[in-house]
Every structure is written in C-alpha cells, then in structure tokens.
C-alpha cells in the first residue's frame, strides 16, 4: 500500500494524502479572496431569504381568502427556498473552493479479531453457560421456558379488545323487507317516475345522518332505470325489478370501493378503483376486471304511494369477499 501513496506529510495528524490537488485559488491568494466573496454572497442571499420569510409571514397576517392562502404559501415557500438554497450553495462552495481537495487514504482494518481472541470469546460464553448450570439443571430450564412462554400470552390477550369479533356483521345490511329507497343526498323517498330513462341515483334505507358510518359504508344501493325491455333478470329474480328499475349494491365485490361510473350507452357499471365492470341488464355480472362476483341485487317494488321499497333484504353479503363467506 505504502508504495502507492505518493505524498505523505511526515508527522501529520491527518490521513496521508495520495493526490495533492492545487486549484488556481490555492496558488493565487487573489483568486481565493474572490472565492471567499462569492461564498459570502451566497450566505447573504440566504439571510435575505430568511428576512423575506419573516416579512411574508407578517405581511399576509390573516388568511381570509383562498387567494391569501395561495400568496402566503408562495412567498413563504419561495423565501424559505432562497434561505435554504443560499445556505446549501454557500456551504458546498466553501467545501469545494476553500477546503483542501486532496484525496486521502486510510487503511481498512480487519473487523474480525484474532483467532486467539475468538477462541477466548467462545470460551467465555461456554464457561458462562456452565456457570448458570442450565445444561445440568433441566428443572430451571423447563420451568423458565414455561414461565416465559406463558408471559407472552397476556401481551396477545390484551389485543383482544382492539375490536369486536366479526360474527355475522359482514353478512347483513340495514336493508329489510319494506325498507324505503331514500335518496342518499336528500333523504326523500324515490318515487316511480323520479328517474329518467338511463339515469341512476344512490339510495339508502334510512337517512344518512341516522346511520353509523359502519352501516353507511355497506348500505348504498344504486337504483338504475334501464331502457324499457332490456333487463334480463336472472332465474328466480323475475320479480326483483320494477318497471325497468333495478337496484344493486353500490359496493364493489372486489375490494369494496363505491361504484361511481354508469356507462349509459353500454349499460355497464364501472368501478373507478380497479375498473371492474358489471353488466347491469344481465344481473350485474362481471364482464371485465378483477372483481369475481356479480353485484348483489336488492329486490324492489313500489308501494301504494308510488314510492320504491325493498321487498326483501340482500340475499348475500355485500362488498368484498371474505373467508367465511359461503
């Protein structure tokens, strides 16, 4: 190694230099002074940025309009950037222009100890184990194992009350026989004739404000009015639609996003999250995308007041699949 190191100041407290670099400013004090002034200028720019930040903070005292917010964010951000960038540029220029650019070298010392030390360390461990007597005294070993093993259980047990057992909560929704179909936005019952052909609305069985978030998250239903005669009900579901009106769960059977896009021309529902596509007139079966199951259908009819009601709850859990789902 030493034959490669060309330059090494005797008695230096620093690592040996292998490549002494002399820049113009190292040879010419005038150039070094000029470099110093440039570096100082960068620090002054930074200081100006910081003063600008304080000025911007005071100058836009109350954020009463979005315009204020925008300008406040702009001026605070720009002045902070100038302040930080000035510091960054100044320090880096200082290192590059003033501090020595020599490459120095240092030996890597082997991390591993000598064989003798390794042997001693191993023996210490062996002797220590012997001192504990654990090899001979199996009663200590076993009872300690039992005690420590049991001790892990309370930690797990304490996590039990993080949440309720799921039980059958995923299988049911608030929809019951005779539940009204209420417009999710207004809370008003949806009546026959409210929907134009080819349009849809989101409906819920009870006003949104009266539901818990957990109930609301699985309850939304899409009520869609199809063009006359195109609905092809699945076997056994002949009475589930009412005069070209069909109702399907809005919660995607893939991972549970609300399905927000209805393609009027092709009568398809598209989940915007992962593009699962459901064919509405064909019982919302999956025609594309990662969802594996058709959207659950809600059987509906119209009561004496001309308002839509459900005739029965969903016949299956809504939303994503889960292990206990049959």
């Amino acid at each position: 190694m030493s034959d490669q190191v060309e330059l090494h100041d005797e008695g230096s407290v620093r690592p040996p230099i292998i490549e002494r670099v002399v820049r113009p400013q190292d040879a010419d004090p005038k150039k070094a002074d000029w470099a110093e002034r440039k570096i100082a200028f960068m620090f002054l720019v930074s200081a100006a940025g910081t003063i600008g930040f304080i000025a911007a903070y005071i100058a836009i005292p109350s954020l009463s309009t979005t315009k204020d917010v925008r300008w406040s964010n702009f001026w605070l951000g720009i002045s902070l950037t100038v302040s930080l960038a000035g510091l960054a540029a100044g320090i880096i220029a200082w290192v590059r222009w003033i501090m020595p650019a020599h490459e120095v070298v240092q030996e890597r010392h082997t991390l591993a100890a000598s064989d003798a030390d390794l042997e001693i360390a191993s023996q210490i461990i062996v002797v220590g184990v012997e001192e504990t007597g654990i090899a001979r005294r199996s009663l200590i070993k076993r009872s300690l194992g039992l005690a420590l093993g049991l001790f892990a259980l309370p930690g797990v047990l304490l996590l039990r009350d993080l949440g309720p057992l799921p039980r059958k909560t995923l299988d049911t929704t608030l929809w019951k026989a005779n539940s009204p179909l209420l417009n999710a936005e207004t809370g008003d019952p949806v009546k026959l004739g409210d929907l134009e052909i080819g349009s849809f609305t989101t409906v819920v069985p009870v006003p949104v404000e009266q539901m818990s978030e957990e109930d609301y998250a699985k309850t939304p239903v899409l009520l869609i009015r199809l063009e006359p005669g195109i609905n092809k009900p699945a076997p056994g579901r002949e009475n589930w639609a009412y005069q070209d009106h069909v109702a399907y769960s809005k919660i995607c059977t893939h991972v549970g996003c609300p399905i927000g896009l209805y393609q009027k021309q092709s009568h398809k529902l598209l989940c915007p999250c992962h593009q699962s596509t459901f064919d509405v007139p064909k019982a919302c079966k999956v025609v594309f995308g990662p969802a594996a199951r058709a959207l659950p259908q809600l059987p509906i009819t119209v009561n004496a007041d001309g308002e839509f009601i459900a005739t029965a709850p969903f016949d299956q859990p809504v939303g994503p699949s889960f292990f206990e789902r049959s």
Partner: protein
Amino acid sequence: MTTMKPGGARKPAATPTGPKPAPKILKKGLGEVDERFGTAGFLKRNLNKVFPDHWSFMLGEIALYSFVILLLSGTFLTFFFRPGTNTVIYPTTGNYVPLRGLPMTEAFESTLRISFDVRGGLLIRQIHHWAALLFMAAIVAHCCRIFFTGAFRKPRETNWLIGVGLVTLGLLEGFAGYSLPDDLLSGTGLRIAYGIVESIPIVGTYLGSFVFGGQFPGPDFIPRLFTIHILLVPGILLSLITAHMIIMWHQKHTQWPGEHRTNDNVVGAPFYPAFMAKTGGFFFATFAVTAGLSALVQINPVWLYGPYNPAQVGAGSQPDFYIGWLEGTLRMMPNLETHVDGHTISWNVLIPAVVIPGILFTAMAVYPFLEAWVTRDYAIHNICDRPRNRPGRTALGVAVLTELGVFLLAGGNDVLSEKYDISLYATTWTFRAAFFILPPLAFMATRRICLGLQYRDAHSAQHGYETGRIVMLANGEFIEVEAALPEDVVARMGLEYRQGPPPALEPPVDEHGVRSKSRHNPLEKVRGRIGAFLYEPDVEPLTNGHGDGHASNGHADGELPAAEQTELTSGQGHTD
C-alpha cells in the same frame, strides 16, 4: 498519474512540517470531556474517518435528510392536527368557501384548518408530503445503487436487511400518513386496505375487525393510525436508521474501483471538516428542493377531494407512487375466486396485494445470502461492482425493476386509456401480457448490454483507444494511431473484479474412484443451475493479452512496436 480535479495540478511533496500545538483552552476543554467520557480516542479515530466521494453515495443521504425534514415538518403538523372521527360542521366562517357548512370528521376539518388558517400551515403540509415522496424515491434509488454495485455483500448483509426493513416500513408509514386527513381519496385507499385484509384466509375477517376496531371504516381507526404514524413507525424507523448509520460508519463505506483503491483501504475526503460540511450543505440542498416544490407545486389538495363519504368516489383515483405498483397488481389480476366448503378464497385480491409484495420483500431480504451461496463467494467485499461487470445480477435487477414498472403503469391503466384514447380492456390485457414477456426480455437485453460493455472495456484496456489520427508509415501504409488509456481510467474499469464463471463442480468421480457427494446432492444441482442461469457469462472472459485474465496492471500497450512508433512521429510531419 493525472489528477481528476478540474483546474487542479499536482505539486511535489511539501517539506514535512509537524502540526502546530493545539490551543491550550481547546485542549483543556477536550481533556475535561475526555476524563469523563474517554472521547479523545474516539475523536482521533473518527474525525479523520475517510469517506469515498461519488454522486451515487448521496442517494442514501437524500433519504436520511428527507427523514429529518419529515420529523421537523411532521412535529409542526401534530400541533394542529386532530385525529378524530367525530363529525363536525365546517364553520360558515371557514376560509375555504366551497366546504362551508358541510359535515366532516375532525381529522379532515383540522387538515383544512392547517391548510387555510395557520400561516405557513399549507407550506409545511406540502413540505411534509413532498419530503415523504422524496424519502421513498431516495430509498428506492439508494436500494438500487446498493443492489447493482453488490454493496450488500459480506460484510454488509445486515445493513441490507435493515434497508429492506426501512423500505417496507417507509411504504407503510407513507400510506398511514396520507390516510390520516380522512379525505375522499385516502378514505377510498383505506376501504381498499380493509378489502385486502378481508381477503386473507382464516384470519382476515378478524384481523380487519381488530385493526380497524370493527367494520369499515371503524370509529377507532384514524386515532390508531395517528399513533402508528407519529410514534410507532417513526420510532422504529429512527432506530433502524441509527443502526444503519452506525454499522455503515463502523464497517466503512464501499468505494468504486480506481487507482490506489483496494479492498483494504478507503480513498476520499476526511469526515472532518470537508465531508461533514458538504453533507451539512447537502441537507440544506435537500430541504431547499422540498421547500421549492412546496412553494410552487401543489400536492394532495384534500379540499378538492372533499371529506370522505363511503358512498362516493373520485374518478381517476391514484395513490402515491410507492403504493401505485400495488394498485397495478390489483388491477391486472384476473378475477379468480375459489369457493370451498362454505368458504371463499379471493385469489384476485390475495395474490396481487399480499402474495406478490410478500414474495418481493422476501426475495430482497434473502438475495445476498442466495447470491453468496450460488457463487460460493463468501469473501469480504469493499469495492463496488460496476453493474456491467456482474451481468447476471444486473440483468436480474433490471428484470425486477421492469416488472415493477409494468405494475406501476398498470396502476394508471384508466388514466392511460383516457389520455391516449385506448380501450381499457386493451391496456389491461397489454399489461397482463407485459407481466410475462417484458421481464425476460429485459433480462436478456441487459445481460447482452453488460457483456458488450464489459467486452469493450477489456478491449480498450488491452489495445488502447482509437485516436482518430491517420498517419502514413514510411512504407506508404496508412494506419490509425491507437493510444494507451491512462492508467487511472483502466483502474476505474475494475476489470479484475469482473464476474468469472462459478467455480467448477467437483468431478463426478475423483481420482481414487470415489463418487462425489455434492454432484449427487439435489440441492447442489439447483445451486449449479441457478449459477449457470444467473452468473455464468455468455462470452469467454477477455484477457489483457498477458493471459492472466487481469487487465488492471495498467499495461495498455499500443499496437505498434517501438520502431514503428518512431516512424509515426515522422509520419505525422507529413500529414501536417
């Protein structure tokens, strides 16, 4: 030897001069500390610590400094953020007019307050989000640097494992962070997360209920996520980063091959003061970039998405990039679901969202050990591999990155379809095909490119480079002058560190007629096959003409004998 510093010139050795004695007051102060803590020995060793210099070594620093910015900006945000799921009404005096009077959770309302009522609040929020993106981007880039240069090899496997932990935790931390404001976009992300947890067989339903505190969305979830995001994960991140740094410091940084650089030394700048100051300056540079982005480029405008509503969703919903690849796997996956004995297994969710990331992170973690096992290379390595010098590993890395790129693009299949007016089905099927086709293609192409580059390096080290100067010899023959490459250029090629073929297998039967055990061990066969597939170069390793397989001794001979060289000099006169 030539200096690589622009504008620099070498000077003969200075006359040896001993250092001046240190000022008494400093020595006294240091002495007082030393008597109590024994710091002088530590300082003596560590202030002189040499750090190699290369731009690619700064990627990890960017990650570190982004993390510091995240801690600073995040602490500010916690002073104002309220992680509550109680419904409040956005006041009619609220600064953001479009949402006045609307019900929303405390979490969302306080996020609006940070953005619109606290001076500098929006800036700090945007700095926090930009720094998070930069943190993950820098981690990924740093991880690639480590992988492609083989810096994970012995003795640095532990730091690689810590790194894999940091990537995984960073991903979770980012997801937890952008889920906290409880806006429409992040709420949809949490809905997806719950759906993914539900897909796990046997325990999924219970896990979902325990983690979220009940059915989705779960009243306890935002407060829990807050604790996870501001205490638990950052605490683990901080301790892992500390361990990562201490181990790096202790083992000393790797360095690129080059003149004077060996496996047993470090060439670079001393930690104090040059490296310390430069790295400090670099912190400010990183901070300046995040502040500049936050001043000029809007990020995560939750007020435009609105508060979370389980019945609503925004079209074109996209997660942050480090989650985007998982979005892609979910979108690409065909809709497989199995119904067995009253139970459902949703492969369509389980495979893309649980199995694929599980395989990726596990493969990352075991890779250093797998490579060492296959190549039988258990030596200490302190010199970075140039990616071209390890064609098999580089090709494998590029294949994996290609697959991740396919996932990421597939995560935006709706956006791509809309922007380029392509059918959504066509983009999805293209990505499904690309999943199988592109990685092998990337593997083969990368390996060829690496071998080609390696070949060229070895060739120019051996034969020199073509100067482009045509001269006429005395006998009238025209030749192009080739000049030897400078020694330092050849040294930087690191040709002696090239991947050779894996060690030869034992002969099936040795000279005493004893059957080799390893040749009939199935595990050894697997080892040989992986080795042949990944690590054996396709072309004969080039020699430098000296038949020793090493081109590093700097003998980049000119093609011409000395006598003809003389002719060349006179020949040059004719061409002028």
